[in-house]
């Protein structure tokens, strides 16, 4: 089955420092990978996705992610973190296994990012 793993429950970073949130995936076939962010009491906001093409994907709010096929990873990065980036980040993979699959998202457990001033 398609799945993603987020190995860190929480990432702490000082404002202005680089931020990395890790995600690894397991798929059969081509991976379709997504990052979402959830602020307190809010819905999931789309940040970026990898479908095909350039391994470095740029997204909203200065975030980018690097697709690495050999390491089966899709880490989210931001060169300089802001306090307002403090939120819960979810990696997700499109589940396209099975003849009846319509591409539901399989989410990771989420990583809480805390950016301190």
């Amino acid at each position, binding site marked *: 089955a398609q799945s993603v793993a987020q190995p860190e429950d929480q990432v702490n970073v000082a404002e202005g420092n680089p931020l990395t949130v890790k995600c690894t995936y397991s798929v059969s076939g081509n991976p379709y990978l997504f990052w979402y962010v959830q602020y307190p009491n*809010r*819905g999931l906001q789309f940040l970026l996705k990898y479908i095909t093409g350039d391994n470095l994907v740029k997204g909203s709010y200065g975030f980018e992610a690097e697709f690495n096929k050999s390491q089966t990873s899709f880490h989210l990065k931001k060169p300089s973190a802001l306090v307002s980036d403090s939120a819960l980040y*979810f990696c997700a993979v499109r589940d396209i296994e099975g003849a009846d699959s319509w*591409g539901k998202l399989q*989410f990771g*457990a989420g990583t809480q990012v805390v950016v301190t001033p």
Partner: protein
Amino acid sequence: EPEVTQTPSHQVTQMGQEVILRCVPISNHLYFYWYRQILGQKVEFLVSFYNNEISEKSEIFDDQFSVERPDGSNFTLKIRSTKLEDSAMYFCASSGGLVVFQETQYFGPGTRLLVL
């Protein structure tokens, strides 16, 4: 910018009661989804809906659950007889386009359901 909207934002109900959660997907989108997130747990897929019928559902989505698109804009999730374990945040999502696997799913703000 178009958004997915959901009502109500919070719902408290007694065990055994029926609840209907409402969603207005983005207007030109074709695919509609419900997910839920039990407090402290992963976001889980419930059901997808396309062309006025369920296209895929998870094992969570049993006979107590149903979905409907009663008109051209609303998309509802009904839980017939709520259980304590149905307490969760329920998210509606929609996506457009023809290549469903590549399309981004846009999520609403969620309805927090509390079953007492």
